[in-house]
């Protein structure tokens, strides 16, 4: 049965009629064409589909689009600034070669941003634990961890500056 879901995605209000069984990830990919959010498993474990709902990271493959009705959703496409400047976490992944095939990357970056928002100066241990819901088969995590630590520092720099203004 179709139902109408409305939400804010990357700052823009959207509204679509979908089957009620539509997952959020399917909604984002098929209805909105936001294919940066990936699907890597069917048991809610790989984290390729992580997006933010009202600022918290969730697995969009394990949430109905209808459950997100009224929420503010941020996907990887909405992370960079409007002028295209990369978010400090995206920039850190590039600088530290935290990605190879890029498939896990959107989910990894979204998880990392959430993790660092909650814990602005994580230790290596914190980062590794905090990413346990994201599987990467390419990088061996070494450079991802480096990138997240660097991204955390850069994000703090950003907030401190913003606070000073």
């Amino acid at each position, binding site marked *: 049965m179709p139902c109408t879901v409305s939400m804010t995605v990357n700052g823009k209000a959207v509204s679509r009629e979908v089957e009620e069984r539509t997952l959020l990830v399917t909604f984002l990919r098929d209805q909105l064409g936001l294919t940066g959010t990936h699907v890597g498993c069917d048991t809610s474990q790989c984290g390729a589909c992580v997006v933010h709902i009202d600022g918290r990271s969730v697995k969009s493959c394990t949430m109905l689009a209808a459950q997100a009705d009224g929420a503010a959703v941020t996907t990887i496409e909405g992370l960079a600034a409007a002028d295209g400047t990369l978010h400090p976490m*995206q920039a850190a992944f590039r600088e530290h070669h935290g990605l190879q095939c890029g498939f896990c*990357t959107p989910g990894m970056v979204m998880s990392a941003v959430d993790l660092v928002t909650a814990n602005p100066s994580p230790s290596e241990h914190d980062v590794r634990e905090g990413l346990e819901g994201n599987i*990467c088969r390419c990088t061996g995590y070494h450079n991802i961890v480096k990138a997240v630590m660097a991204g955390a520092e850069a994000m703090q720099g950003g907030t401190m500056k913003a606070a000073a203004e």
Partner: protein
Amino acid sequence: MANPTGIGASVRRREDARFLTGRGTYTDDINRPGQTHAVFVRSPYAHARITGIDAAEAMRAPGVIAVLTGADMETDKVGSLPCGWLIHSKDGSPMKEPPHFPIARDRARYVGDAVAVVIAETREQAKDAAELVMVDYEELPAAVTSLKALEGGAPLVHDDVGGNLCFDWHLGDAAAVDAAFAQAAHVAKLDLVNQRLVPNAMEPRAALGEYDRATGEHTLTTTSQNPHVIRLLMGAFVLGIPEHKLRVVAPDVGGGFGSKIFHYGEEAVVTWAAKKVGRPVKWTAERSESFLTDAHGRDHVSHAELAMDKDGNFLALRVATIANMGAYLSTFAPSIPTYLYATLLAGQYKTPAIYAEVKAVFTNTVPVDAYRGAGRPEACYLIERLVEVAAAETGIDKAELRRRNFVPASAMPYQTPVALQYDTGDFAKNLDIALPLVDYDGFAARKAESARRGKLRGIGFATYIEACGIAPSNVAGALGARAGLYESAEVRFHPTGSVTVFTGSHSHGQGHETTFAQLVSERFGVPIENVEIVHGDTSKIPFGMGTYGSRSLAVGGSAIVKAMDKVERKAKKIAAHMLEAAEADIEVKDGRFVVAGTDKALTIGDIALQAYVPHNFPLDELEPGLDEQAFYDPKNFTYPNGCHVCEVEIDPDTGVVQVVSFAAVDDFGRVINPLIVEGQVHGGLVQGIGQALYENCVYDEESGQLITGSYMDYCMPRADDVPSFTVRYHEDQPCTHNPLGVKGCGEAGTIGASAAVMNAVVHALSEYGVTHLDMPATPERVWQAIRRHTPAQAAE
């Protein structure tokens, strides 16, 4: 002046910009107007006769366009998925090669074997309808493990393959080995299992077929590491589509690790079905489907013996291996346990005589083929475990025993007794770098410190050598390859000086768009932003063989160098004409074309413009244009090698193994982009550690059901399972036979790591008298090993 985007620079990857912002385009991200969706009906039995398929109800379900079966494919004369490598048994007979149809016809041979395909307007509708396809199965007993499949009276996977034996092959000099064993002072023996693994690239396989009624052209977009190979195999052998009417595109691909080399039935089905239904057909695997249908890796059972003299010098090695092929021969399957395995059994050692026997067996499981390392990790694991056993039994220090038996650098080039000729390598140097790096001498103190915390500690080594840069076509052909294994490149300068490089190699994480551009930037001084690397589309690139076997840079990169040589030759001619000098007087310096001894010079940009605006060219001597193509066929394999050292700590209460440090010292020849090379090593190491400690593909031995069919049971290493790594490389042993001096780095980490970890685990457990443990060293296995070796009361 060092070029900041030239060879040796850690240039940040250009492809990252799209991947980091969600603009990567993977196969499942592509949607075509009028697109339909395919869902496969798959066998729930490991072995069953298909006695009838009733699709009537499924056809009536909402949105269903077609339900197609093996019989429909047969009517359309669709062929069998071909195998790319022919192995001959000891007795000279060719391997058994039963047909492998994209959709099973009368019998399903593994859980997940495709039985029908439903095509519908949406994916959910196709799934709904797939449940309504009624298949009558007559279940048959299954042969699940390779050992059981070889037993007399085992169920036959293919009626005409007696004993389920695909081939019984050997390599080496049996008589010389027997003679050496007769004189040995000590023989170390080991039985080991190299368990089955699921490659698990994070992007599940997907395929999108399209047919253009107007031109009769088919297009397949697929998650492939080598689109031309798919075009060749599928066009020529399966669907009978001539190459000029078949375009295969592999867009961004989310990891491969071998599993996306092979030609899979689903690719043929969507290509064929798109024409039948007259609309694009897309199929995307769900992860559980990937577990069931992606070709798996490894699955060897081996016995090995090493003969030594009284000083620990290796005299001979004897190996017998049983390799599981699964239910059908996947594209490269027979080459993995033969020419990519037995030929590497010399390792880094000068063992004078080696003999290996390999039996390949059909079972009712998904096909087994190359998985990162492909044959070479199996060889390395076997040798390095055996050497460690030998060290423990003879009491010779394990580093020392290795050093004593290394092929010395002075012996290069070195002909092994198993068909390879190593060109360069300084194995002792790798070890010399590694020992202080891991503070080998400080191990005893660290072990004592662990003991104070109630933990066991072990250190393990693995030295490896691999044959990469696959492959010299003439050698491969002599060994049974049915294709050439060269690579192609085209370097096209545009009038304004920007460059497009077309490569037959394929990137699915390796960073070709950066590394290959560095080659051009270095050679011609072109800013890297002006170099575009095009790969993965058979309608754009020259015929190429794709990416596997750590071959991209060594073979694909060398092809680019050859094409650049041609560009340079032509550019010199143009420069000579423009500068009114003799061609012989033109020198190339820092990317500039200079008349020797003068300050007259041109950049490649000046020359390119002239090449396309040839208003006053001497046309009989000089054609317009600056666009050259080359094919590079390597003269030999390349031989990356290295030394890995792992330290583990074990909690004896729970059996949990933790990798506390890992150092890799590698010789990859020349390194073009250190950042990318190190990344390749890190990733490889974690796959190796994954095999050693976490990953295990388990089928139920009776029913043939896949027990580890999702990440709930198949343990993928996560960030909190592994440490950060210490990675070093040296560049003073460049490859001697390719123009870049590169050896390849894609698989090295995986090849060395499993053995290093397991050697460390066994070392830690040696105080209990444990001498061997099969992978993966799960907590329970470790705990059981401790318990078996502990007197009952001592546990209390």
